[in-house]
C-alpha cells in the first residue's frame, strides 16, 4: 500500500506546477531516454529479485529480518520530503525566483546527505557482521540494489549541487530552466526507485 500511495503522491506532486502547455514531459527528452533505461535496469532487477525470492522464500524471509526497517522507513520519509523540496524549487524558478529555488534545492541536497549517512550506518553494520554480496542470494540483491541506488543518490546530489551553484549565479530564469527540470526529474526518479525498493526488500514477506 505504501508504494501505491507514495507513487500517487509523487505523480500528483509532479503534475501540479510543472506541466506547461504542449509539453508532455518536464525536462528534456534525451534525459528521459536515460531515465527509462535506468528504470529498465531496476525493473529487471526487481523482477529477478521476485523470481529468486519465490524459489528461496524461507531464506529471504529469515535474512530480511536482519534489516533495519526503522532506518529504511526514515530514509523513505527523507527522500519523499526531499522530492517535495525539489518540486518547490522548480515552482520557484518558474516564477523567476532564483534564490528561493536554490534554497529549496539546498534543502533537498541536505536531505540527500541525511539519506546517505543513514545508509552508510546500515551498510557499516552489515559489513561489520561480515555480510557481503556473496553471503546468500538475499544479501546479493539487498546490497546490489541498495548500493546501486545509493550511488544514484550521490549522483543526484552532484547534479543538485551543480544546479544550486548555477541558480545562485542567476543562470536560470522563468523562461529558461530546463537544467532545473532535468535535474529535478532525475531526483524524482531516484526517490521513486527507493519507494519501490524499500517495501520490496525491507517489508514484503
Amino acid at each position: 500500500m505504501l508504494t501505491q500511495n507514495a507513487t500517487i503522491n509523487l505523480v500528483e506532486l509532479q503534475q501540479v506546477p510543472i506541466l506547461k502547455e504542449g509539453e508532455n514531459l518536464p525536462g528534456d527528452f534525451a534525459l528521459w531516454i536515460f531515465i527509462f533505461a535506468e528504470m529498465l535496469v531496476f525493473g529487471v532487477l526487481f523482477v529477478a529479485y521476485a523470481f529468486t525470492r519465490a524459489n528461496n522464500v524461507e531464506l529471504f524471509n529469515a535474512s530480511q529480518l536482519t534489516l533495519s526497517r526503522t532506518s529504511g522507513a526514515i530514509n523513505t520519509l527523507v527522500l519523499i520530503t526531499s522530492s517535495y523540496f525539489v518540486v518547490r524549487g522548480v515552482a520557484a524558478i518558474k516564477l523567476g525566483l532564483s534564490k528561493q529555488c536554490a534554497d529549496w534545492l539546498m534543502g533537498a541536497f541536505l536531505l540527500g546527505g541525511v539519506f546517505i549517512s543513514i545508509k552508510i550506518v546500515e551498510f557499516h553494520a552489515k559489513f561489520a557482521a561480515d555480510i557481503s554480496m556473496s553471503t546468500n542470494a538475499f544479501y546479493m540483491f539487498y546490497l546490489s540494489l541498495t548500493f546501486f541506488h545509493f550511488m544514484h543518490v550521490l549522483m543526484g546530489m552532484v547534479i543538485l549541487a551543480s544546479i544550486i551553484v548555477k541558480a545562485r549565479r542567476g543562470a536560470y530564469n522563468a523562461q529558461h530552466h530546463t537544467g532545473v527540470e532535468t535535474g529535478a526529474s532525475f531526483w524524482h526518479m531516484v526517490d521513486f526507485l527507493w519507494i519501490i525498493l524499500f517495501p520490496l526488500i525491507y517489508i514484503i514477506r
Partner: protein
Amino acid sequence: MKYKSQAVAKLYFIAAIGLFLGQILFGLIMGLQYVVGDFLFPAIPFNVARMVHTNLLIVWLLFGFMGASYFLIPEESETELFSPKLAIITFWVFLAAGAITVLGYLLVPYASLAKWTGNDLLNTMGREFLEQPLPTKVGIVLVALSWLFNITMTMLKGRKTAISLVLTLGMLGLAVFFLFSFYNPVNLVKDKFYWWWVVHLWVEGVWELILGAMLAFVLIKVTGVDREVVEKWLYVIITMTLVTGIIGTGHHYYWIGTPVYWQWWGSVFSALEPIPFFMMTVFAFNMVNKRRREHPNKAAVLWALGTSVMAFLGAGVWGFLHTLAPVNYYAHGTQLTAAHGHLAFYGAYALVVLTMISYAMPIIRGRAANPERAQIMEMWSFWLMTVSIFFITLFLTGAGIVQIWLQRISTTPMSFMAVQDQISIFYWAREAAGVVFLIGLLLYITSFFVKGESKAFE
C-alpha cells in the same frame, strides 16, 4: 583535401588494407585446418595461424584508427597536423614492429620467441590476443602515446569539436587499458579478470567512442546535416555505450572463478548493450534521410550505413544471443562465441575503418569521389564481404548450436573431438563463404586502380 598534412593518412590506410588481406589469408588457412586437420602442419600449426589472424586484425584496425584520426583531426581542428613527421616516423616504427612480430610468430617456435624477447623479465605473453612479445607491447604503448600526443597537440592549437574530443578520449582509453596487458599474475582468476580490462573495455568500451566519432564525422561530411544535431546524438549514443558496457564486462565473469553476483550484474547490463548499437543504426539512417546534399561518394554512404547495421547485428544481436548467464552456461566457449566475434569485429570495426578509407582516400588522391566504375566495384566488394561474413556467422552459429546440443545438453554427451567431426559440414560451408570474402576483398583492392572520369571538388 583542406590541409596538406592530412595526406599522412594514406600511408596508414595502405598498410591497413595490406594487413587486412594478410588477416584473411590466415583466416582461410585456419578455416581449412578446421576440416583438414594436418593442413600445413607442422609448418604453420593452428595456434600460430590464429595468432597471426587475430593480431593482424588488431594491428590493421589500429592502423585504420590512426590513419583516420590523422585525416579527421586536422579537418575538425581546422589546422595542420601538429607534426606530420612524427606521424610518418610512428608509422614506420609500428609497421616494422608489426612485421617483425608476425615473422617471429611464423619463423620461431613461440617458446623460443618468448625466451629471446625478455618474457622471463616480465611474463606477459601467451594470453589470447595479447601474445605479442614484451618489446612489441612496449612498442604499442609508445606508438599509441605518440599518436595521442600528435592528435592532442593538433587539437589544442585549433578548434575543439565534440567529435575530436570523443575520438581523443577513446584513444586515451585505448592506451590506458592496454597497460593491463602488462599485469599477469600467477593467480589464473585475477589474470583472466584483468585480461578483460584490455579486451572487453577496448571493444565494448573505448573503441566504441572511436567508432562513434568516426561515423559521426563521415555522416556530417556526406549528408551535410547540422553538426549540433550529429554531435548531440554522438554524446547520447556513447553515454549509453559506457552505461551498459562498463558493468557489461560482467558477462565475462560468470565462469572464471569470480563471484556469483556477476551473473546478475553482467546479464542485466550486457543485455542492454544492443541499445547504443540500435541507436547508432537509427541515427545513421536518420541523418542520411535528412541529408542536405547529394555527396558524389555514394560508396562512402553505403559503408557508413553498413557499419551501423552490421555493428548492431554483430555486436548487438549476436552478442545478446549468448549474454544471459543461463544461456551462456551452455554457450560459453563454443563456436557461437566465434560467430559473434566475427560479425561484431567486421560490422563494428572493420567496416568503420573501411568507411573512413572510402571517404578519405579519394580526397587525399585529389578528388571528391572516385570514378563511377570504381565506386560500383567498391560497392560490389561491400556486398560480397558483408554477405559472406554474415554467412560465416550463420554457419558458425549452426555449428555452435549443434555443438552445444551434442556436447553439453544431450543426456549422452559426446567428447569435444567427436562433436567436431559431426559439425564438419558447417566448417566446410564457412570456408566456402570465406573464399567469397577473399574475392570481395580482392575486388575492393582492385577498385583503387580503376581509372575513369572522376568528380572534381565542387
